[in-house]
Protein backbone atom coordinates (compact mmCIF):
# COMPACT_ATOMS: atom_id res chain seq x y z
CA UNK A 1 0.00 0.00 0.00
CA UNK A 2 1.28 3.47 -0.83
CA UNK A 3 0.19 6.56 1.07
CA UNK A 4 -0.93 8.39 -2.06
CA UNK A 5 -3.82 6.02 -2.82
CA UNK A 6 -5.52 7.11 0.40
CA UNK A 7 -4.81 10.79 -0.26
CA UNK A 8 -6.25 10.67 -3.78
CA UNK A 9 -9.37 8.85 -2.57
CA UNK A 10 -9.82 11.45 0.17
CA UNK A 11 -9.41 14.25 -2.38
CA UNK A 12 -12.07 12.65 -4.56
CA UNK A 13 -14.50 12.30 -1.65
CA UNK A 14 -13.82 15.90 -0.64
CA UNK A 15 -14.57 17.12 -4.17
CA UNK A 16 -17.81 15.15 -4.28
CA UNK A 17 -18.72 16.77 -0.96
CA UNK A 18 -17.97 20.23 -2.38
CA UNK A 19 -20.20 19.48 -5.37
CA UNK A 20 -22.99 18.43 -3.01
CA UNK A 21 -22.66 21.54 -0.84
CA UNK A 22 -22.82 23.79 -3.91
CA UNK A 23 -25.62 22.07 -5.79
CA UNK A 24 -28.08 20.90 -3.13
CA UNK A 25 -30.99 23.13 -2.13
CA UNK A 26 -32.28 21.24 0.89
CA UNK A 27 -30.35 22.22 4.04
CA UNK A 28 -30.30 18.64 5.39
CA UNK A 29 -28.67 17.45 2.16
CA UNK A 30 -26.06 20.22 2.44
CA UNK A 31 -25.23 18.90 5.93
CA UNK A 32 -24.93 15.36 4.50
CA UNK A 33 -22.41 16.62 1.94
CA UNK A 34 -20.44 18.36 4.70
CA UNK A 35 -20.23 14.99 6.48
CA UNK A 36 -18.67 13.53 3.32
CA UNK A 37 -16.01 16.28 3.35
CA UNK A 38 -15.25 15.66 7.03
CA UNK A 39 -14.87 11.94 6.35
CA UNK A 40 -12.35 12.72 3.62
CA UNK A 41 -10.38 14.83 6.11
CA UNK A 42 -10.45 11.96 8.62
CA UNK A 43 -9.05 9.54 6.04
CA UNK A 44 -6.25 12.03 5.36
CA UNK A 45 -5.47 12.42 9.07
CA UNK A 46 -5.31 8.68 9.76
CA UNK A 47 -3.28 7.98 6.60
CA UNK A 48 -0.74 10.66 7.50
CA UNK A 49 -0.60 9.39 11.07
CA UNK A 50 0.22 5.91 9.80
CA UNK A 51 2.73 7.30 7.29
CA UNK A 52 4.64 9.36 9.86
CA UNK A 53 4.51 6.64 12.59
CA UNK A 54 4.61 9.15 15.43
CA UNK A 55 4.73 7.98 19.03
CA UNK A 56 1.77 10.17 20.03
CA UNK A 57 -0.85 8.71 17.71
CA UNK A 58 -1.76 12.30 16.75
CA UNK A 59 -3.41 11.50 13.43
CA UNK A 60 -5.93 9.18 15.03
CA UNK A 61 -6.46 11.44 18.05
CA UNK A 62 -7.28 14.37 15.78
CA UNK A 63 -9.56 12.16 13.69
CA UNK A 64 -11.42 11.38 16.93
CA UNK A 65 -11.67 15.10 17.68
CA UNK A 66 -13.01 15.76 14.18
CA UNK A 67 -15.63 13.01 14.62
CA UNK A 68 -16.72 14.57 17.93
CA UNK A 69 -16.94 18.09 16.51
CA UNK A 70 -18.82 16.75 13.49
CA UNK A 71 -21.40 15.15 15.77
CA UNK A 72 -21.84 18.45 17.63
CA UNK A 73 -22.08 20.30 14.32
CA UNK A 74 -24.81 17.99 13.05
CA UNK A 75 -26.79 18.43 16.26
CA UNK A 76 -26.65 22.23 16.15
CA UNK A 77 -27.10 22.34 12.36
CA UNK A 78 -30.23 20.20 12.44
CA UNK A 79 -31.63 22.26 15.34
CA UNK A 80 -31.13 25.40 13.24
CA UNK A 81 -32.72 23.73 10.19
CA UNK A 82 -35.73 22.69 12.28
CA UNK A 83 -36.04 26.24 13.65
CA UNK A 84 -35.88 27.73 10.15
CA UNK A 85 -38.42 25.20 8.92
CA UNK A 86 -40.75 26.16 11.76
CA UNK A 87 -40.50 29.87 10.89
CA UNK A 88 -40.43 29.73 7.09
CA UNK A 89 -42.11 26.38 6.34
CA UNK A 90 -39.20 25.53 4.05
CA UNK A 91 -35.72 24.10 4.48
CA UNK A 92 -34.38 25.21 1.10
CA UNK A 93 -31.23 27.27 1.42
CA UNK A 94 -32.00 29.50 -1.57
CA UNK A 95 -35.28 30.65 -0.05
CA UNK A 96 -33.58 31.98 3.08
CA UNK A 97 -33.19 35.53 1.82
CA UNK A 98 -34.19 37.49 4.93
CA UNK A 99 -30.86 39.34 4.96
CA UNK A 100 -31.03 40.17 1.25
CA UNK A 101 -32.44 43.40 -0.17
Amino acid at each position, binding site marked *: *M*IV*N*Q*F*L*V*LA*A*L*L*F*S*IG*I*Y*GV*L*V*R*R*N*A*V*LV*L*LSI*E*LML*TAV*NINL*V*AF*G*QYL*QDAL*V*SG*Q*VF*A*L*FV*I*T*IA*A*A*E*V*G*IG*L*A*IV*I*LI*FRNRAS*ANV*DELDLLKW
Partner: protein
Amino acid sequence: MQFTDWIVDARNIVFLVIALAMIGAAVMVVTSRNVIHAALMLVVALAGSAALFLMLGAEFVAWTMILVYIGAVIVLFLFGIMITRAPTKADPVRLDHKRRWPAIFVALGTFATMATVTTMAFEDAPLPEGVSRAADIGQVLFERFVIPFEVVSFVLLAALIGGIVLARKDPE
Protein backbone atom coordinates in the same frame (compact mmCIF):
# COMPACT_ATOMS: atom_id res chain seq x y z
CA MET B 1 4.67 2.75 -10.06
CA GLN B 2 2.70 0.97 -12.76
CA PHE B 3 -0.89 -0.01 -12.12
CA THR B 4 -0.04 -3.67 -12.82
CA ASP B 5 2.62 -3.58 -10.11
CA TRP B 6 0.19 -1.93 -7.73
CA ILE B 7 -2.76 -4.27 -8.23
CA VAL B 8 -0.85 -7.53 -7.52
CA ASP B 9 -0.95 -6.80 -3.79
CA ALA B 10 -4.09 -8.37 -2.32
CA ARG B 11 -4.58 -5.45 0.07
CA ASN B 12 -4.69 -3.06 -2.86
CA ILE B 13 -7.48 -5.10 -4.45
CA VAL B 14 -9.43 -4.84 -1.19
CA PHE B 15 -8.69 -1.11 -1.16
CA LEU B 16 -9.89 -0.73 -4.74
CA VAL B 17 -13.17 -2.52 -4.03
CA ILE B 18 -13.82 -0.41 -0.90
CA ALA B 19 -12.82 2.78 -2.71
CA LEU B 20 -15.14 2.11 -5.65
CA ALA B 21 -18.03 1.35 -3.28
CA MET B 22 -17.33 4.56 -1.35
CA ILE B 23 -17.13 6.70 -4.49
CA GLY B 24 -20.33 5.23 -5.86
CA ALA B 25 -22.12 5.80 -2.56
CA ALA B 26 -20.75 9.36 -2.28
CA VAL B 27 -21.94 10.21 -5.79
CA MET B 28 -25.35 8.81 -4.86
CA VAL B 29 -25.39 11.03 -1.75
CA VAL B 30 -24.98 14.19 -3.82
CA THR B 31 -27.11 13.19 -6.82
CA SER B 32 -29.94 11.05 -5.41
CA ARG B 33 -33.39 12.46 -5.95
CA ASN B 34 -34.66 10.76 -2.83
CA VAL B 35 -33.58 12.30 0.47
CA ILE B 36 -33.83 9.07 2.44
CA HIS B 37 -31.71 7.26 -0.15
CA ALA B 38 -29.07 10.00 0.13
CA ALA B 39 -28.89 9.54 3.91
CA LEU B 40 -28.69 5.75 3.59
CA MET B 41 -25.98 6.00 0.92
CA LEU B 42 -23.99 8.11 3.37
CA VAL B 43 -24.03 5.03 5.64
CA VAL B 44 -22.28 3.03 2.90
CA ALA B 45 -19.68 5.75 2.38
CA LEU B 46 -18.98 6.02 6.11
CA ALA B 47 -18.79 2.23 6.53
CA GLY B 48 -16.25 2.22 3.69
CA SER B 49 -14.18 4.82 5.49
CA ALA B 50 -14.34 2.71 8.68
CA ALA B 51 -13.02 -0.23 6.63
CA LEU B 52 -10.18 1.99 5.37
CA PHE B 53 -9.35 2.91 8.97
CA LEU B 54 -9.12 -0.81 9.76
CA MET B 55 -6.76 -1.23 6.80
CA LEU B 56 -4.66 1.62 8.18
CA GLY B 57 -4.46 -0.10 11.56
CA ALA B 58 -6.65 2.47 13.33
CA GLU B 59 -9.05 0.13 15.09
CA PHE B 60 -10.40 2.54 17.68
CA VAL B 61 -11.15 5.27 15.13
CA ALA B 62 -12.91 2.73 12.92
CA TRP B 63 -15.23 1.52 15.67
CA THR B 64 -15.84 5.08 16.89
CA MET B 65 -16.75 5.99 13.33
CA ILE B 66 -19.32 3.18 13.20
CA LEU B 67 -20.72 3.97 16.66
CA VAL B 68 -20.93 7.73 16.35
CA TYR B 69 -21.72 8.18 12.67
CA ILE B 70 -23.69 5.15 11.61
CA GLY B 71 -25.24 4.72 15.04
CA ALA B 72 -26.08 8.28 16.01
CA VAL B 73 -25.50 10.89 13.31
CA ILE B 74 -27.45 9.08 10.59
CA VAL B 75 -30.40 8.60 12.95
CA LEU B 76 -30.26 12.33 13.66
CA PHE B 77 -30.27 13.03 9.94
CA LEU B 78 -33.28 10.79 9.39
CA PHE B 79 -35.04 12.65 12.23
CA GLY B 80 -34.18 15.95 10.57
CA ILE B 81 -35.47 14.74 7.21
CA MET B 82 -38.74 13.59 8.71
CA ILE B 83 -39.29 16.70 10.85
CA THR B 84 -38.60 19.12 8.00
CA ARG B 85 -40.87 17.04 5.81
CA ALA B 86 -38.41 17.06 2.94
CA PRO B 87 -39.94 15.30 -0.07
CA THR B 88 -39.21 11.65 0.67
CA LYS B 89 -40.32 10.50 -2.75
CA ALA B 90 -38.39 11.17 -5.91
CA ASP B 91 -38.73 14.88 -6.65
CA PRO B 92 -36.35 16.01 -9.39
CA VAL B 93 -37.15 19.72 -9.35
CA ARG B 94 -36.77 20.75 -5.77
CA LEU B 95 -33.63 19.11 -4.45
CA ASP B 96 -30.93 20.51 -6.73
CA HIS B 97 -30.11 23.91 -8.13
CA LYS B 98 -30.54 24.27 -11.85
CA ARG B 99 -26.97 25.46 -12.50
CA ARG B 100 -24.88 22.35 -11.96
CA TRP B 101 -21.94 23.14 -14.24
CA PRO B 102 -20.20 25.71 -12.01
CA ALA B 103 -20.37 23.22 -9.12
CA ILE B 104 -18.97 20.41 -11.28
CA PHE B 105 -16.22 22.75 -12.44
CA VAL B 106 -15.27 23.72 -8.87
CA ALA B 107 -15.33 20.10 -7.67
CA LEU B 108 -13.19 18.85 -10.57
CA GLY B 109 -10.76 21.75 -10.10
CA THR B 110 -10.40 20.97 -6.39
CA PHE B 111 -9.84 17.28 -7.08
CA ALA B 112 -7.30 17.93 -9.85
CA THR B 113 -5.36 20.37 -7.66
CA MET B 114 -5.26 18.16 -4.57
CA ALA B 115 -4.55 14.93 -6.43
CA THR B 116 -1.74 16.56 -8.43
CA VAL B 117 -0.13 18.07 -5.34
CA THR B 118 -0.25 14.86 -3.29
CA THR B 119 0.98 12.77 -6.21
CA MET B 120 3.89 15.14 -6.77
CA ALA B 121 4.72 15.22 -3.06
CA PHE B 122 4.42 11.53 -2.15
CA GLU B 123 4.66 9.61 -5.45
CA ASP B 124 5.25 6.00 -4.39
CA ALA B 125 6.06 6.51 -0.72
CA PRO B 126 5.14 3.18 0.93
CA LEU B 127 2.86 3.06 3.95
CA PRO B 128 4.49 1.45 7.02
CA GLU B 129 2.81 -1.50 8.66
CA GLY B 130 1.52 -1.47 12.20
CA VAL B 131 -1.63 -1.52 14.26
CA SER B 132 -2.25 0.98 17.04
CA ARG B 133 -4.25 -0.50 19.87
CA ALA B 134 -7.04 1.29 21.68
CA ALA B 135 -4.91 1.20 24.83
CA ASP B 136 -2.21 3.30 23.14
CA ILE B 137 -4.73 5.90 22.04
CA GLY B 138 -6.28 6.03 25.51
CA GLN B 139 -2.84 6.50 27.05
CA VAL B 140 -2.00 9.39 24.71
CA LEU B 141 -5.48 10.91 24.97
CA PHE B 142 -5.37 11.13 28.76
CA GLU B 143 -1.75 12.23 29.06
CA ARG B 144 -0.55 14.36 26.20
CA PHE B 145 -3.94 15.46 24.82
CA VAL B 146 -5.91 15.73 28.04
CA ILE B 147 -6.64 19.48 27.75
CA PRO B 148 -7.89 19.32 24.13
CA PHE B 149 -9.94 16.29 25.20
CA GLU B 150 -11.63 18.27 27.98
CA VAL B 151 -12.19 21.22 25.64
CA VAL B 152 -13.87 18.92 23.13
CA SER B 153 -16.13 17.53 25.85
CA PHE B 154 -17.04 21.11 26.78
CA VAL B 155 -17.87 21.84 23.14
CA LEU B 156 -20.15 18.79 23.14
CA LEU B 157 -21.89 20.07 26.27
CA ALA B 158 -22.35 23.50 24.67
CA ALA B 159 -23.73 21.87 21.51
CA LEU B 160 -26.12 19.79 23.62
CA ILE B 161 -27.50 22.85 25.44
CA GLY B 162 -27.57 24.86 22.21
CA GLY B 163 -29.47 22.14 20.39
CA ILE B 164 -32.09 21.95 23.13
CA VAL B 165 -32.47 25.74 23.33
CA LEU B 166 -32.74 26.13 19.57
CA ALA B 167 -35.14 23.31 18.84
CA ARG B 168 -37.63 23.62 21.71
CA LYS B 169 -40.85 25.53 21.29
CA ASP B 170 -41.22 28.87 23.02
CA PRO B 171 -42.79 28.35 26.47
CA GLU B 172 -45.40 31.13 26.20
